[in-house]
């Protein structure tokens, strides 16, 4: 899908998602990244406003200077010119101990509290569709100070009132529930970025709330593509589209268009 307006040249959805995600990252912070769009977004941040962002991969790559898109969170691009090539025990312990500011994840299905399903559609014992499972997602969602979800397919099949399976903890059932369950205090989902807009979580209820609409998208479309009611605040901004500089860098990160370009 290609989106254009009169002042901006055409960009594609994946470019927009990466740029939005990238801009959330602050320099001199640590980010844990999953496969695909998350890695590209973190690498884009590293090459633009956050050159000292510490990128960490669950398989043990710490602080690489990512040369080109890794196609796996464990491949050697994830520890290219890294400060350390270590173990999963090391990086997951670092998360559990409080070192990781951001976790960037994909999500198959999400509910209003930012809980995520990547395990099964249907019944666990006899699933209609068997998905890969948590991987490192449950760990990221449990430990990182702020988790960001990137989804390209917001619809009534992915923004669900009730998930078939809660793989990864969002705000669980609302304020205070994470702490009550024993999860580390003061951390949880922060943003959800989809093809329609950018969402946060309302402070008192921890329910999904719209922050900005992507160019050309309406509030009606946002609501129509969700099983649950999305909170709409009085002030909703418009997402800044990708700049030419960002788009050029994305092409350098992913020259074969494995992630960007769709």
């Amino acid at each position: 899908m290609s989106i254009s307006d009169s002042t901006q040249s055409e960009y594609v959805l994946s470019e927009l998602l990466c740029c939005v995600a990238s801009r959330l990252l602050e320099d001199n912070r640590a980010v844990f990244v999953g496969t695909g769009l998350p890695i590209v977004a973190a690498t884009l941040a590293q090459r633009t406003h956050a050159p000292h962002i510490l990128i960490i991969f669950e398989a043990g790559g710490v602080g690489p200077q990512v040369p080109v898109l890794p196609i796996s969170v464990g491949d050697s691009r994830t520890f290219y010119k890294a400060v350390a090539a270590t173990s999963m025990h090391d990086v997951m312990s670092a998360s559990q101990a409080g070192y990781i500011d951001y976790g960037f994840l994909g999500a198959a299905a999400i509910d209003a509290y930012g809980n995520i399903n990547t395990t099964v559609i249907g019944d666990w014992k006899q699933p209609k569709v068997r998905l890969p499972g948590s991987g490192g997602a449950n760990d990221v969602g449990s430990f990182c100070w702020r988790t960001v979800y990137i989804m390209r397919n917001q619809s009534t099949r992915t923004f669900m009132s009730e998930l078939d399976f809660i793989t990864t903890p969002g705000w669980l059932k609302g304020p205070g529930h994470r702490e009550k369950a024993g999860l580390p205090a003061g951390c949880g989902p922060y943003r959800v970025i989809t093809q329609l807009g950018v969402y946060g979580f309302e402070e008192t209820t921890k329910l999904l709330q719209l922050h900005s609409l992507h160019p050309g998208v309406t509030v009606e479309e946002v609501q129509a593509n969700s099983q649950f009611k999305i909170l709409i605040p009085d002030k909703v901004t418009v997402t800044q589209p990708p700049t030419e500089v960002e788009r050029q860098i994305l092409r350098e990160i992913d020259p074969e268009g494995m992630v960007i370009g769709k």
Partner: protein
Amino acid sequence: MEKNLEIIAEGEGELLGWRDPDENRAWIRDNKSRGLIDKCISVQEAVKRFVKDGDYLAVGGFGHIRIPMAIIYEIIRQGRRNLVVAGKTAVHDIDVLIGAGCVSKVECAYAFGHELRGLSPAGRRAVETGRVKVVAEISNAAFQWRFLAGMMGIPFIPVRNLLGTDTFAKSSAKLVRDPWSNKLVALVPAAYPDVALFHVPRCDKYGNAQIDGILVEDFELARASRRVIISSEEIIDEEEIRRDPQKTVIPFYVVDAVCEVPCGAHPTLMPYLYYFDEEHIHEWLTLSKTVEGTEEYLDKYVHGVVDFHEYLERLGGLRKMTKLKQIEQLRPSMLDSDS
């Protein structure tokens, strides 16, 4: 009356790979040699001796990075059945084993997906038709810490992930209150796999192995498992190990077999040495969309070849491996349009 730590909740996942620490200590005392013995044997012999039907099997590396594929193909060739596989970060390894009918149960942190390449047809089909049962869920870190507990010779280890989710509910973890902070904490049971497989860049004949790049979970997994088979790109002299003892990741006394298998991770990536063989993985993912295609793949590359050497010849031999080396080493020739 004895006071126990109160179990507040339990996951309903099947408990796999747990052993009483005293039972395992006695087993180690009686079955793991502490002597410096030449353990070099063929892949065929290693699988024959150390991989049994029904074993709880774990594979080192990361699913399609540094995977001992030569050993996995041999497990299929020897017709192993009812394996219980640790889906720790399983990608290509578990998919081929499932496609070949070797697997009956999986404990799943990650399986049935090929990361960016998409979902794994053979794995998904097996679970969705009930041929393979996922008997427990877990997360990557929690699985890693199951192996840490096994390495430490303890019965369980407390963790702060899994809490509040269905992943916990379908795991074999238990929920208690930490006696110090009074906060809820999950206990994951130790995992002591029956057999673990690793591919490394270099190893001496006794089993002292070095690993280049990330360790993933290999440090802990090698020490937690009862039997350990290592395939290595090359066998080096003991002197090379002793010159740089800080580079030893797996020590000889946990190792049972050493196999010299250059290119032994193909088609998975071997850090610094060769890239994924995307063409070959694509062939698998395409053929494995059907039962017939899966058979075709296995006949061509596993059953129809005598050994791993013949397999390598069949997919392009030295020419192919050289190309994969160039891609891995980020050399300009990776941009050539020839394939």
